[in-house]
């Protein structure tokens, strides 16, 4: 017998008593209570993949760190979202991202509207200890309206998921593996030649950085993501 959806669990997050429904994640419960846990690959309205590891939290009784975005609440759980260890790992994760490709804010279209930038600032990142890798990656401006700059991509796969789950086109996917991974359109043909792309622009709106942007704008305006939870809500008929 699966527990009824209305089952309510009580738990502690950072010492604060919180109640949550059994199907809620730690991240849901924390944010409802106004507690912040950093996230990058998570976006309200999209399926979670637990990939960026920024939302890892400590749970009493478990030696493993667990991602808050996919871990369901349990009765009596004691969650720590901010500890010296977690903060150190989060900073290192961000530094690894900054060093992985080219994230120079001053010459980026997303400057001022970038999730990675905000996360860096929030974690007091003044420098990056790891050597920058500066891979030589292409840009694809073959689409009429949009551009993908792989040098700015953090491989959060928000574009892949919004295109698959919300737009239903599945134009985007990931190619190759490891440090050589890259998001691609269709079977790696130029975006402008994609048979499946509907030019809806959702991928551009959900992209956390300047990897996906609209042509003809030197500075990106704030991305609009409100449509996502709304669509998800309407679909599920909640």
């Amino acid at each position, binding site marked *: *017998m*699966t527990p009824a959806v209305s089952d309510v669990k009580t738990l502690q997050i950072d010492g604060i008593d919180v109640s949550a429904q059994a199907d809620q994640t730690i991240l849901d419960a924390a944010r409802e209570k106004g507690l912040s846990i950093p996230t990058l690959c998570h976006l309200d309205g999209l399926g979670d*993949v*637990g*990939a*960026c*590891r920024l939302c*890892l939290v400590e749970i009493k009784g478990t030696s*493993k*760190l*667990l*991602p808050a975005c*996919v*871990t369901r609440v349990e009765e009596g759980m004691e969650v720590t979202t901010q500890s010296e260890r977690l903060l*150190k*790992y989060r900073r*290192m*994760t961000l530094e*690894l*991202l900054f*060093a*992985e490709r080219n994230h120079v804010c001053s010459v980026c279209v997303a400057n001022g509207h970038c999730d990675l930038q905000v996360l860096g600032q929030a974690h007091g990142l003044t420098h990056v*200890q*790891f*050597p920058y*890798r500066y891979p030589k990656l292409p840009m694809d401006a073959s689409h009429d309206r949009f551009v993908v700059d792989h040098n700015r991509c*953090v*491989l959060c796969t928000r574009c892949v998921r919004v295109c698959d789950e919300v737009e239903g086109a599945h134009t985007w*996917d*990931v190619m*190759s*593996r*490891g*440090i*050589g*991974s890259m998001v691609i359109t269709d079977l790696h043909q130029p975006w402008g030649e994609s048979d499946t792309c509907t030019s809806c622009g959702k991928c551009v709106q959900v992209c956390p950085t300047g990897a996906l942007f609209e042509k003809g704008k030197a500075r990106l305006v704030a991305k609009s993501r409100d449509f996502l939870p709304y669509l998800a809500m309407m679909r599920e008929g909640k």
Partner: protein
Amino acid sequence: MTPEQLEQIASEETAARARNPRRLSVCMAAGCISSNSDAVKKALERAVAGGPLKDACPVTGVGCMGLCSRGPLVSTEPAGVLYQNVTPEDAGEIVGAVSGPAVERLQCSRELPFFKRQVGVVLENSGQINPERIEDYLAAKGYAALVQALTEMRPAEVIEQVSRSGLRGRGGAGYPTGLKWSTVAKARAETRYVICNADEGDPGAFMDRSVLESDPQRVLEGMIIAGYAVGASRGYIYVRAEYPLAIARLNTAIRQAKHLGLLGSQIGNTEFAFDIELRLGAGAFVCGEETALIASIEGGRGTPRPRPPYPAQAGLFGAPTLINNVETFANIPPIIRNGGDWYAAMGTQRSKGTKVFALTGKINCTGLIEVPMGMSLREIIFEVGGGVPEGRKFKAVQTGGPSGGCIPEQFLDMPVDYDSLAQAGSIMGSGGMIVMDDSSCMVDVAKYFMEFCMSESCGKCIPCRAGTAQMYDLLAKICEGRAALDDLAMLEDLCDMVKNTSLCGLGQSAPNPVLSTLRYFRDEYLAHIQEKKCPAGVCACGMKQEAGS
């Protein structure tokens, strides 16, 4: 087919053998084939056909006989002589000696510790039966366990025997098999699946390949029993495409099992139905991780997902899924046949039974062995394995592949089981053992494994994708004599971070080769950094710097 009919096939096969005991068996597993055993087999066939033994001495291809470094191997019956390093030119002499004294120049003693110290459970038929004939398997008590389970035992009793046996997952992590089976059996669902993980990918590991090439029916039988025990009617074998011979033999085995009604509906004339399908891996190491493997079977990109939920709760197509390794399934038939207590009588307190190891590297007897759990590393390497060649000094043994670590000399007397290997900073892993002598540089070894993890990372989570690349660069820097002590500190920081924050087992264990070599061979790292010198003389330390300055 009824159990009686199966028994009849087995007894006919045994009777035929008894009528004509003469027989030449040639190893036709990948190791010996690569040293030309198929030509040896053809030459033996010609020699038999052209001599007095025509039609009286069948030449059979059998599975792995273990001592791969002395292949091609040929054994004769009824004398039971084993010949090593056989060439096609030796065929006439060997055939001539079938009923007489053995050819001494080619003889390989069966009294070697390599053979004497082994205990055959998983490999009991390996090198004995023709893997392409189900009749051979039936004659070797094959499918007796399945018939016994289907006709005499309830599913819960099967699981009880597996639990009693103390068998732990042979894929590497050592999760109790009985517990996993009962979790899947108890999950509330209409559909359940059984998956056999045959995506063996650790460098230097070839246990699963040998089992599949030498005795594929055994794995099928284990899976069918598992299907009965957990209430599944469909199974998948996920085998890497780099094992063409194993795939061909599995296909043959599945076809023959279907033909005899051991797969399909009404198995052994009971209500139980079970089917097995092969799925081929496309070359990604990470697909050996269970959730990535499941994603790959489902047709998606082979990337892992966070657990929980574990596959036992929600696995393939969302259904409760039992996923075990080849060797785990291969242990099941003898456990059911002889009872869990029989199996539990072997091994140590917390690691029961036997384990198959692939011995490679700087060791005299390269090959496949099966020994009871708890045998010491010294016995495995120096007795069974025959020690380090050319009088060189043993330095370390690498177990567990890229997820494992290097164990130095001071642990040689440690009994090999899941817990003691973990204490020494390595893991049991799937059973690869790479022996290294003093000509190996441990930093270079760590770099090799890190390169492997870097190129096999799926790229999904940041710590593994970017962390392994940074760690590899740091190791390369150390090897080249360009590193400072700060780099070593950064490497250790990254090891800790990648280990604790990565999404799946690949990333979580990727730092292990570095951590274990740092723990036991820190002086080698320091020599590279401070003295710009590679003590083993492997790395081109300082060369670049000198050229640059």
